[in-house]
């Protein structure tokens, strides 16, 4: 199992992989090309239509003043859209800041929380599956339903504040307070971290018990055991969780859109996306607003391309930086 961990992570990172054992080619003959093409054809068409063409078209749009649905002639404007983004839009920078906040705060917290809850589960001997089901259950709740649930739960005069009031703890404004709105979303992300928890608990239960017993004989304390045995074993999972979490956080949309949209019913207008006080204005919600509420297609396309580049750059940097910290047992790499 540990060697498969190594292989999967290598694959995700796009590093060249070796053929798996038992897969050695006996007949190096190639499949006839038209057979291969027949198997690939639906996806090749799909790739061209739904991936390659749109990516290229977005780049082209981003250099024009194109507005979908408008009869205004499309004019080539060079890098104007990008210049406007960087120098004239405070929404853009607010969206960037909020999104980076989520990447830097939410993603590590979610990973740590998944690790902690997984550890709690591995400690329980009887009824482990019951806990695992309960911990995992919130992950099954559709994001929209989860957001609506949390809107009710975290209503400033709602149930949670009532409970907190009983204990005399402060009663924050949650989604309606700019200082608390993003932490509230983080709370929601922790609640739904069950998928990562499952991966962590599988990795933790995979560590041979003998290692801990040997460490006990050597007189190692719990912290030492965690650092020297558990942590190396789960480091590929930490890596996977941070990487996928980061890519996800860059595109963070649904929860923010639903929460700030619903909290904002009185205004009944899309213009106030990001309520309260633009604290929930994320990159994707701003892009949606520009592209599909105002139909500033060219401008939004420039945002889309920057997002693409940012995710790509962050992924490359992350993969490089983490190479040193991820431990692959089995000496596979």
């Amino acid at each position, binding site marked *: 199992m540990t060697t498969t961990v190594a292989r999967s992570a290598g694959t995700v990172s796009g590093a060249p992989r070796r053929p798996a054992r038992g897969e050695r080619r006996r007949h190096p003959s190639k499949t006839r090309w038209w057979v291969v093409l027949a198997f690939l054809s639906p996806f090749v068409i799909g790739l061209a239509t739904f991936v390659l063409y749109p990516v290229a078209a977005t780049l082209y749009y981003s250099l024009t003043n194109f507005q979908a649905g408008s009869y205004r002639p499309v004019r080539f404007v060079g890098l104007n859209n990008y210049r406007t983004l960087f120098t004239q839009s405070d929404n853009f920078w607010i969206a960037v800041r909020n999104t980076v906040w989520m990447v830097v705060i939410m993603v590590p917290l979610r990973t740590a929380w998944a690790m902690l809850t997984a550890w709690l589960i591995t400690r329980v001997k009887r009824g482990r599956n019951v806990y695992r089901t309960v911990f995992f259950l919130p992950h099954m709740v559709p994001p929209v339903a989860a957001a609506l649930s949390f809107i009710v739960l975290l*209503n400033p005069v709602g149930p949670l504040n009532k409970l907190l009031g009983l204990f005399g703890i402060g009663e924050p404004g949650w989604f309606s307070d700019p200082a608390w709105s993003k932490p509230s979303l983080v709370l929601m992300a922790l*609640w739904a971290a069950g998928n990562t928890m499952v991966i962590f608990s599988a990795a933790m239960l995979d560590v041979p018990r003998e290692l801990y017993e040997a460490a006990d004989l050597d007189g190692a304390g719990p912290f030492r055991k965690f650092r020297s045995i558990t942590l190396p074993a789960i480091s590929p999972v930490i890596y996977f969780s941070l990487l996928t979490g980061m890519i996800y956080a860059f595109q963070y949309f649904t929860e923010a859109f639903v929460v700030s949209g619903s909290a904002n019913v009185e205004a009944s207008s899309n213009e106030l996306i990001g309520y309260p006080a633009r604290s929930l204005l994320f990159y994707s919600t701003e892009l949606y607003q520009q592209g599909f509420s105002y139909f500033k297609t060219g401008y939004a*396309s420039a945002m889309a391309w920057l997002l693409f580049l940012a995710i790509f750059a962050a992924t490359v940097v992350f993969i490089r930086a983490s190479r040193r910290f991820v431990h692959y047992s089995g000496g596979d790499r």
Partner: protein
Amino acid sequence: MTGRRHALGRNRSPLGRRLLYGLAEHAPAVAVALCFLLPLMISVLTAFMTQHQAGTGSLWPSPWDFGNFRRVFTAMPFGRDLLNTVLYAGLSTIGTIVSSVPVAYALARLRWRGREAFFLVVLAAMMLPAQVTSLPLYVFYSHIGWVGTLKPLIVPSFFGDAFSIFLLRQFFRTIPGELTEAARVDGAGELRILLRVMIPMTKPAIAAVGLFSFLYAWNDFYNPLLYTGNSQGGQTLAVALTQLAKSGHQNAYQLQMAASLMFLLPVLVLFFLAQKVFVEGIALTGIKG
């Protein structure tokens, strides 16, 4: 999770100590479990409150109002939106499986030049944010009159889904090469090998991929918002639920929760029916190569 050697010895200790150990073992997990269940419990309880009581911070319905689930159907076209959601999720799942299985097979078992490079393209497509492609696609779909219908949601799934291809490829590679090789030596064509050898052996994996893709569509918010958000023919439930709050039903938390629970119920039923597939499938997405 089977075959774990429990460090738990025979319980010879007195009852008090056993209780104490039990408490220490379970208390943190129980506390966390309660936190996980709290939002769901509040949602369920709110769905049974009267309009007057919902949103006031009351924890327990008094009196119990069982009419909210019925009222949802008059507050919004729930049945129509449910049908749309079922169509989107069902058809796109069929499309994804039918179109992704052959591609995954070609990546896992066929031998051709550029296979590894093509696999990298699949990975890249998997990581591509929807926002990057949605602007031109929206323009394209509105040109051919698809905006406002379910077509932009369903049709692309018949052209392969990168994530499903990736997962299926990983599963296919776990099948020993000797089996497909033997069929090949017997003179079976590739399509025959796929249908008669590969698919029967990877049924659980294909089921897992199907479940993931069904759930993805059921839960999807961004694409239905774009293409059916202002549609006359109705939305999918994920979008319709958020619009319930905006359509003259302000502060109708009890209706929102009732509708939201009805939206959630099929997912939970699926989960409990196929829990093993889910949990193991998710562990596999992260671990198994």
